[in-house]
């Protein structure tokens, strides 16, 4: 979600990758290409309360490399005439390709822990993550997937639209019901802007799944 910029800077850190075991997370039906989610992002600041409606669509997912991507559409953005769509890329915290430590985007380890600990589903993991970075976690049985989503560019508006996509989201996905919560992090923006999304069924009585196959 594009937000307004506030001046600040922190030195970059080496991103944490753990080359060890190449086992990957098991797939989740609701976190797949074509899945759509809808909800809100709380963009309130000290001056006023504000929330934007948000639609997210997953366009691709590559569990082997801990990668996913999609679009995010923000509606009722005050300074925009139309909904603003961005393309984002995600890092899946699988303990192999990516860890809970961001190591870039001006996020320190303290920032990381501050954000992850805001997710109730992170609490059972916190101790282990703080002690060994989460290497020993049994991800095959934990029904939550943690990610970072970083918007890469605006799809339908120019960069002079007065909005910025400098920050990124800490995201928690619930495998059970496909709900997503997230916190936007940008040292130059209001802290802990919360993203809350649920799966969308397009007027159906149940779940429907589309698919593609890349050659």
């Amino acid at each position: 979600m594009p937000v307004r910029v506030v001046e600040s800077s922190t030195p970059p850190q080496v991103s944490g990758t753990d080359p060890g075991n190449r086992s990957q997370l098991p797939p989740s039906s609701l976190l797949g290409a074509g899945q759509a989610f809808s909800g809100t992002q709380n963009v309130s600041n000290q001056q006023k309360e504000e929330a934007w409606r948000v639609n997210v669509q997953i366009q691709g997912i590559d569990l082997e490399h801990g990668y996913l991507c999609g679009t995010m559409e923000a509606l009722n953005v005050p300074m925009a005439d139309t909904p603003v769509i961005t393309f984002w890329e995600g890092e899946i915290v699988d303990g192999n390709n990516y860890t809970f430590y961001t190591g870039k985007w001006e996020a320190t380890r303290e920032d990381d822990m501050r954000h992850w600990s805001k997710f109730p589903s992170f609490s059972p993991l916190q101790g282990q993550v703080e002690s060994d970075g989460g290497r020993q976690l049994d991800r095959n049985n934990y029904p939550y997937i943690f990610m970072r989503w970083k918007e890469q560019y605006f799809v339908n508006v120019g960069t002079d639209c007065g909005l910025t996509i400098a920050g990124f989201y800490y995201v928690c996905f619930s495998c059970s019901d496909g709900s997503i919560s997230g916190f936007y992090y940008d040292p130059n923006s209001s802290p802990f802007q919360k993203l809350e999304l649920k799966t969308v069924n397009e007027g159906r009585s149940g779940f429907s799944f589309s698919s593609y196959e890349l050659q």
Partner: protein
Amino acid sequence: MPTTTTSAASSSSSTASASGNNSNRQADVFSRLASSDPEVKLKALREVKNQIIGNRTKKLSFLKLGAVPAIASALADADDSEKCNNILVQSAAALGSFACGFEAGVQAVLDAGVFPRLLRLLTNPDEKVVDAGARSLRMIFQSNQAPKYDFLQEKNMEFLFSLLNSENENVSGLGASIIAHACGTSVEQRVLCEAGVLEKLVILLDGSLSQREACLESLATVLKNNPEAVSDFVGLESGRYLNSVTELTKDRYPRTRLLSCLCLVVIYNTSPSYFVNMGTKSGLITTLLELLNDPGQSGDDAALGLSCLIAGKEDLQKLAYEANAIKNIVDILKTDSELQTKRLQGLFLSLAELCSKLEDCRCSFVSLQVLDLLINALRHKDADVKAAACICLRNASRSVKNLSAGRFNSDHVMLPLVQLLHDPSSSVQVAVLGALSNIVLDFSSPKSSFIEFGGIKQLIELSKSMDPNARCSALRALRNLMFLADNKRKELYISDVNAQGFACLISDPEPPVQEQALALLRNLVDGCISSIEFVFDEDGLILDTVGRQLRKGPQAHMAIQGMYVLTNVASGTELHKEAVMQQLFPQATGSENFMLKFLQSDESQLRSATVWTIINLISPSSPGAYDRHVKLRSAGIIPQLKNMVNDACLDVKIRIKTVLGQSMSFGDNY
């Protein structure tokens, strides 16, 4: 016997006189070739030979005039006496020159029936005659048209070894050439190895340049895809010869460097465990990249060699990428517009392999403007080049990021691809379908150049092709085109395809075609709820066909798509859910319900898809959910799910928990 020809008419008198002189001379040469005077004949032979050496145009010109039969006669007429030796040498040399890198020449030499005569020259007492015969035969054996050599016949093997044992480098080189170009099967490889050919060949590694090169070529042929042969070779003198081949990759002659690299590529592809040293792999890649710049045949072969080496190997692709392979190849493509087709094919295939797995490579295509080069190549006259460019595009577009950015959705890219759907070559058709399958997945815009160019109609036609690969590829492209498609786009397909035609696709004899047809159907019935109606056309023919196919006990991949069709239909209205129930529980049943079989499949995706169908059928918000639940319970499906609460797959476990939760809401116990 060739006779004199008249010169073509010409507007200028000087040109007429020049061409007249030319053809007179040629006609004169033919009469002199047939002369009974050996000196005259010899001079004519030398004249022809000197004119055609390295001159393809002259070769063609003399060929058309019938020079080869004339020279073959001169060779045949010469006896083995000393005074005829010069004639034997010159005629063999001329024939060899015709055959050198010129397929029409090889054909003409073989058609002239002179092959056995050339073989007999190898036993001539005069070394020069033997040399000329061997060189000439080597040229023939460079060609695919060379006569088959039956290695399984003992006398042929004896003859071969007599050649390899010869002190004459051209003769031993001939032996190696025969192996290089005629050994084709693992049986032949084994027979050769058992006869000790590896020990004979490696001696040639220490020989002359020509012997070394012949040895390297034949080693690659004997070792290719044969782990036992590779093991034998590596075992020779504790790896000394493997080291020698590796050292030869630094030789001063480009052709030697190339042939040793190709030999190592064969060994690596057959038995990679002999290459634990990273430095060897890097060195091999670096040498092949340097050889890409060689203007001759070595450069052509290096390009194909590089693509073979890195094919399917992410670690080597990464090494090549880090060694700047993409930029090197792009620079060659950009600066040289006259590249041979074989080199072009090799370069595009190398680019294709580079971006087969690495996202960084695919992204660098955009920054290096590779797309324009590929689009130009799509218009090349050679089918192999077009196919290679399509394969490259296919691999480059294997990037959701680039697809999302709309990098390929332009008329400039799409038009030549759509045009290639009509290409007469089936390899081009399959390759372009592969590229289009990916490129039609444009997330950036609802507008599709592909559709605007009439692509859907062409895919519909191709989905009825006699070739199952084409049918499968066309359906895959349609499936991807219909991913998250709106009703307008779906209608463009559905309006041209009736239920009967679609049902045939689902029941295609080839399982991969069935799978893609079902995957396409899955996408067609996703999205807006009204799109489900398609499966009810013609009295529900399509839905009935899906049910019938699922009851046949299909392969997992097909069953997964079929179950997702049912899942998607079951996410609709009451009518839709009931229709799915009719497919799960048809009137006439005798066998075990297929859902039970699928729930016990080893494929977690199939188990998951099956559970999703159940979730949708008993979704609490729908009125008939309770009755459907009762039926599913009676059929043993709900009890089966209770046995699966600890399924090994987390996703399946979670979905089962959802079903059992719904079940509990109907009064059922866990």
